[in-house]
């Protein structure tokens, strides 16, 4: 019983991290129709910023998250405006190819700067947690969970309440009509991509505290983000939150099933993905 409770807590907390991993990917896919293969690389860049600030200057990893977001926003905005925007109207294959190339470039840049060694961020409170009877809630994972939901909430508010959010949705809905009310397409595309990258940066900062990072660690995150968005459905932050939490449960409980182990985590996740695609191809909450 206590084991089950512990697993439940871990599943929910892990789900929170997955929400952070997927929320920016979902925005870029839903609004720009770009399956951003460099998303995982953005996450890793965020992780390395947090790692550097922690290692060099002793800055707490959670305090460096706004910097991760800012740096990745700038990188994302510039990349979209200068490079990806050139193929935005081309078939989806071209954006796949281009973002794949961007991914390779970033990974190799990181290899050159940081080498391929695994790194981790371990603040003094890394090992401790909140003890609730038989269940232990690790502080770091709890904080990561809360921050993931804050990020998702802020993104939701941005889209639902602000002028920029209205412009982003208008562009997704009808780009000609958006231009006719005076929305600058190039700027709005770049903003959207920048915001997606900023979310990835925060996710990277969070992940650096719970997992070891290396320049090539990004690709599984892109894959996970893809599965989560397909699970939840494209087109809303809520759908991504549901997809992320579900993915956390699948991973934790799949591994705990008799006869299976940690090695089956991805296989289980993709099996569920296939089932969802067959039964409900628009995703659980997709339109």
């Amino acid at each position: 019983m206590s084991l089950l409770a512990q697993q439940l807590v871990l599943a929910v907390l892990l789900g929170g991290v997955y929400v952070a991993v997927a929320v920016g990917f979902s925005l870029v896919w839903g609004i720009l129709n770009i399956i951003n293969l460099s998303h995982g690389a953005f996450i890793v860049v965020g992780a390395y910023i947090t790692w550097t600030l922690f290692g060099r200057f002793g800055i707490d990893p959670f305090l460096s998250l706004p910097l991760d977001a800012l740096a990745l926003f700038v990188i994302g905005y510039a990349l979209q405006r200068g490079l990806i925007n050139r193929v935005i109207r081309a078939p989806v294959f071209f954006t796949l190819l281009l973002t794949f190339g961007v991914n390779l470039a970033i990974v190799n840049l990181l290899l050159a700067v940081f080498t391929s060694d695994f790194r981790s961020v371990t603040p003094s409170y890394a090992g401790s947690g909140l003890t609730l009877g038989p269940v232990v809630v690790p502080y770091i994972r709890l904080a990561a969970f809360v921050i993931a939901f804050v990020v998702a909430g802020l993104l939701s508010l941005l889209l639902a309440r602000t002028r920029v959010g209205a412009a982003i949705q208008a562009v997704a809905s009808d780009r000609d009509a958006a231009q006719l009310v005076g929305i600058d397409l190039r700027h709005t595309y770049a903003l959207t991509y920048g915001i997606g990258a900023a979310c990835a940066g925060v996710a990277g900062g969070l992940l650096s505290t719970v997992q070891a990072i290396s320049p090539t660690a990004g690709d599984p995150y892109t894959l996970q983000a893809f599965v989560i968005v397909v699970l939840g459905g494209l087109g809303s932050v809520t759908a991504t939150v549901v997809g992320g939490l579900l993915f956390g449960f699948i991973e934790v409980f799949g591994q705990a099933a008799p006869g299976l182990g940690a090695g089956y985590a991805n296989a289980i996740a993709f099996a569920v993905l296939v089932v969802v695609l067959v039964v409900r191809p628009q995703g659980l909450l997709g339109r």
Partner: protein
Amino acid sequence: MAEPFLSVRGLSAGYGETLVLRDVDLDVDAGELVALIGANGAGKSTLLATLSGLVPPVSGSVRLAGRELAHARPETIVAAGLAHVPQGRRLFGGLTVERNLLLGAYLRRDGEIRADVERVVGYFPALRDKLARDAATLSGGEQQMVAIARGLMARPKVLMVDEPSLGLAPNVVDRVIDVCAEINRAGTAVLLVEQDVLVALEVARRAYVLETGRITLSGDAAELRADDRVRKAYLGI
């Protein structure tokens, strides 16, 4: 004589190698209601898309209040006072009617945007209790009303309305056309593109006839209504 408010001279435009518009001249004076008529595929919508910067012109000039806008970006053109209500409504589905209207005022920074929502809804009282609805769930007539209201939210000096009557019931068409005339009486110049030629010539002061990309006739709306060529080609008389 002073330059007309909106002055189009020698405008040619098209898609790729194909020219759709050839050497189009067209004027709209301040406060005027001008109709643009012509058959399907004559280039009416392309003309409006060129004027609003969606289609780049090949040659020619578009001047609004003396300012050259032929190669300006769409947002510059909207800001200069030329708004375009596109054919087929083109609302932002998934967003509420109210947000659609607020997006119409996207470039405005003044404090009167909220008051303007009230003002434009005043033209279409049917929209008043539908502001919180998803725009995509409205009827065709209501969507057309929102599209025109959204265009007005930019506070344009010239409002271009493309085929507002398309696919609407006759009583709704009357309402929509009446509102175009009301908007015009309130001081906004209107360039009305309309397939229903009789309706268009009744409400407009002047009109242009566009055929295969060229202006072939223009003049006083009442005179065009009496013109044999117009009667034969568009009124079926």
